[in-house]
């Protein structure tokens, strides 16, 4: 009996010690639960992680928030909604996090946003772009950082209209993001240029584009302009096939996100010159805030920032600012604090709109060029997110009254 007893006591003592330690650390830190598809989309989310790590260290070295240190508990969301909801529940019920951040894919973001609304937990959707998160399916507790699909398309509109091409071909990945982008493009362009014709639409399976056939089908439709929503590996394949087959010659190409280093850099010297894109020319933005960010990032990680790094960094800065403003981690106070929350990020000042919980952090719009054998953006300018939003009355029609 004795050794058993001994063993049992040791376990009990250990458990008590652990419980005490846990409650002690709970008092000293504010926990934030981040869930993202770290495994499935590492090219974007690796820099994202680095970005928020840097932000958390900056915040904590200045004393944290409300006198407590910020602690981020990061989990993989498995890139699917069911898994993501389970992880979110785990973060909330087991880890006791004050709020949730992250997610990458649009459908995952939507599921977690719905969870947040149901369980009354504040959720800052950092990456997912679908308009539904802030509009059709918006709720009191969900906010979004990145410029939405609609905003990104609207940013490209002036240059598209200026090109004044009549026949357009569309190519997009066949899921929420691609479909929404294509629909927004057609709607906005038709408003500005009623005589426009959409001659072909290629909806390709995500990650599995048959680039040669798709490029050829677009060429055969004889468009004057091409609107592209492909990204990642799909984009690389499409660009190479399109270049070899000469389908981009004498055509205006408008493309979402292709100027982001995540997607532009793997193309190396084959970067498609002249495409009109949204993106992030990290080495050419000379504002004070941005230079400070890049210097700190390069010093810390010995690598240059991708857009994911900016998003991760600003995510945790926003979280800290909201908690400080709310003076509490209570969900209702936090949600109220996020509304109209003003911040200065590496891209300059922005705020979270009270009307639809969308941040006004913008993006850079420019043209792709080749410099020193790699792709970069030229003739670019920063487009403030607030400037491309539909009118408030339209937004009210899109978003159910949830609060």
């Amino acid at each position, binding site marked *: 009996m004795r050794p058993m007893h001994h063993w049992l006591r040791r376990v009990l003592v250990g458990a008590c010690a652990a419980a005490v330690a846990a409650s002690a650390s709970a008092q000293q830190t504010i926990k934030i639960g981040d869930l993202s598809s*770290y*495994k499935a989309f*590492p*090219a974007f989310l*690796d820099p994202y992680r680095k970005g928020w790590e840097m932000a958390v260290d900056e915040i904590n070295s200045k004393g944290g928030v409300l006198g407590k240190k910020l602690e981020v508990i990061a*989990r*993989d969301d*498995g890139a*699917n*909604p*069911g898994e993501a*909801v*389970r992880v979110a*529940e*785990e973060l909330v*019920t*087991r880890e006791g996090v004050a709020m949730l951040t992250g997610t990458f894919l*649009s*459908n995952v973001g*939507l*599921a977690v946003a*719905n*969870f947040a609304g*149901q369980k009354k937990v504040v959720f800052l959707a950092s990456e997912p772009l*679908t308009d*539904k998160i802030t509009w059709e*399916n918006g709720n009191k507790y969900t906010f979004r950082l990145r410029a939405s699909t609609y905003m990104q398309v609207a940013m490209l509109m002036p240059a598209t209209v200026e090109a004044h091409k009549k026949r357009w071909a569309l190519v997009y990945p*066949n*899921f*929420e993001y691609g*479909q929404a982008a294509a629909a927004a493009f057609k709607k906005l362009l038709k408003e500005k240029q009623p005589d426009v014709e959409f001659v*072909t*639409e*290629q*909806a*390709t*399976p995500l*990650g*599995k584009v*048959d*680039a*040669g*056939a*798709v490029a*050829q*089908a677009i*060429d*055969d*439709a004889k468009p004057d302009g091409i609107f592209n929503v492909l990204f990642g*590996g799909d984009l*690389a*394949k499409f660009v*190479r*096939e399109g270049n*070899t*087959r*000469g389908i981009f010659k004498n055509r205006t190409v408008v493309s979402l996100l292709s100027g982001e280093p995540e997607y532009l*850099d*793997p*193309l190396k010297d084959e970067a498609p010159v002249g495409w009109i894109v949204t993106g992030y020319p990290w080495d050419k933005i000379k504002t004070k805030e941005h230079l400070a960010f890049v210097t700190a990032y390069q010093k810390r990680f010995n690598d240059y920032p991708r857009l994911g790094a900016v998003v991760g960094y600003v995510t945790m800065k926003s979280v800290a600012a909201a908690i400080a403003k709310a003076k509490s981690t209570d969900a209702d106070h936090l949600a109220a604090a996020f509304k109209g929350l003003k911040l200065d990020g590496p891209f300059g000042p922005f705020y979270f709109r009270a009307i639809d919980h969308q941040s006004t952090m913008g993006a850079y719009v420019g043209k792709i060029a080749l410099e020193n054998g790699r792709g970069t953006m030229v003739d670019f300018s920063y487009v403030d997110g607030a400037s491309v939003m539909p009118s408030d009355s339209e937004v009210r029609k899109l978003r159910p009254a949830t609060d």
Partner: protein
Amino acid sequence: MTLNALLFQALNGLSSASGLFFVAVGLSLIFGVSRIINIAHGSLYMLGTYIAYSFATHVGGGLGFWGGIVATAVLVGLIGGLIEILLLRRIYRAPELFQLLATFALVLVINDATLAIWGPEDLFGPRAPGLRGAVELLGRHLPSYDLFLGALGPVVLVILHMILARTRFGRLVRAATQDREMLGALGVNQTLLFTSVFALGAALAGFGGALQVAREPANLATDLTALGDAFVVVVVGGMGSITGAYLAAVIIAEVKAICIGLGTVDFGLFSLNFSKLTLVAEFLVMAVVLIARPYGLLGRAQATVRTIAEPEEPIRPASSSLTASAAVVFALLLALPWLARSSPYLLVLGIDVLIAVIFAVSLHFIAGPGGMHSFGHAAYFGLGAYGAALLVKWCGATMGLALIAAPLVALFGALMFGWFSVRLSGVYLAMLTLAFAQIVWATVFQWEALTGGSNGVIGIWPPPPFDQANTYFWLTLVLAVGAVLSLRRLLFAPFGYAMRAGRDSALRAEAIGIDVKRVHWLAFAIAGAVGGVAGGLFAFAKGSISPETIHVGRSIDGLVMVLLGGIQTLTGPVVGATVFAVLQDTVMRQTEYWRALLGGIILLLVLAFPGGIVGAVMRLVGKARAS
């Protein structure tokens, strides 16, 4: 679309066909000889692209590119040989399909190893030296590398055909495909033959992957993509037939290319965007072929394999000690909401585990005692989940009604697909079930107006009092226990005996008057309905569902649970589902490399307990009793 455009798309299709052929033919050879369904085949293909990328960029030039492709094939072949010697050789005697579990673990390990070596970013290789440009044809530009690939497929086909037809090695491979026991009895060194065939298959996968380096970036997701493609091609062409594999590759690639070429077509009343069909084109082709020609285009009926695994013990009613321990577990679970008051997450995990148990038990019902290895059981899980969720979304149904509807929708689907599936057996049945699951998945994905497309259905939360974790947990527990007990009861009813008789010897069962097909069909439908229960519970537990619920990953997870617990025992799936769900939950939190860790744990389990966890426990108990 002009005739020239069509012709040109057909030419495009030929180069894709070669790519499909290279990855599929190795899988076909391996299966033919060793009867192993090598889930890691796509991983070997992916490794090929990565290794070739390293050669092409670090060595560079024509030597780095072209020499690199050859070197890659050799290297991947060596890796394949090592896998066979170190892992597979040890488990040939395990129950059929167990090798699948081992190779699944390899997929996880290889994926994380690739991540660790090459990093997370997509790596795009250089263009092929000497074939950078395009050839002008029909007024269009065809990349010369595509032309080269299109020609290389038939060349490799002819070479392989010559090897198989004219050499001693080829004769042995063909003999092993037909009757490997006889070959062993004739004194042929099977060990060497299995290793060399596995290495050859791996080398072909590596070669196929290496050739893609100039066309697409090396990417960590290609392993599963390539695997899916390879399976479809092999099954459509006929297992073990290399000419069939090429034919199937051409058909599938051409159907896809022409779908893309057609684009949106106006049919007067409605218009159809054919490019969206590429998601499902290959599975449509596969379903049609398997229904019309059950053994693929050029395949032959599988010779009955005299299994080298130990014969399966008949299942027995629960012993008194098992009943007692089950009662204790049930009582503990009933009390869990109180026990877990300090850590409420346990309940959330508990709900997940119970849903996994229902799913695994229903799959086991047909895969174990039924002998039908369904690779598409997620379809019925998904039909149940979507049936319940859509009823709530469109008709405002209550949760009770939705949970009743879930198994009914799944039952309907299982009756329909099962009718076709039970006509086949073995790997063909597995593949047809997979094809149906993929078709369901693609339909759900594409039919946005009804199903919400890629977003799925959100906001399906249980009403009070079930909005509390403890009440929902009890609900799940009651349904799970009900499912386990009723399926178990069925197995000991005459129906269950008839089903097992049909599995063990269809011929003899028919002879004593059992309509084997009908019994198996009904069993398939019952399993589907129970899977639907799990799906319905899942929808309300998560508050949302999306097409991922139906994806092939869930089907494979189900098989892993069943195999992990032990396919030959009745408690196996319960234990396997619990262990797998808990492992996934804990391991995912532990390390960034959770895939490799999970894979490593499964590999250890596979090597240590070839009969599954419960099988190992039973053997231990048996030994203790004997001594």
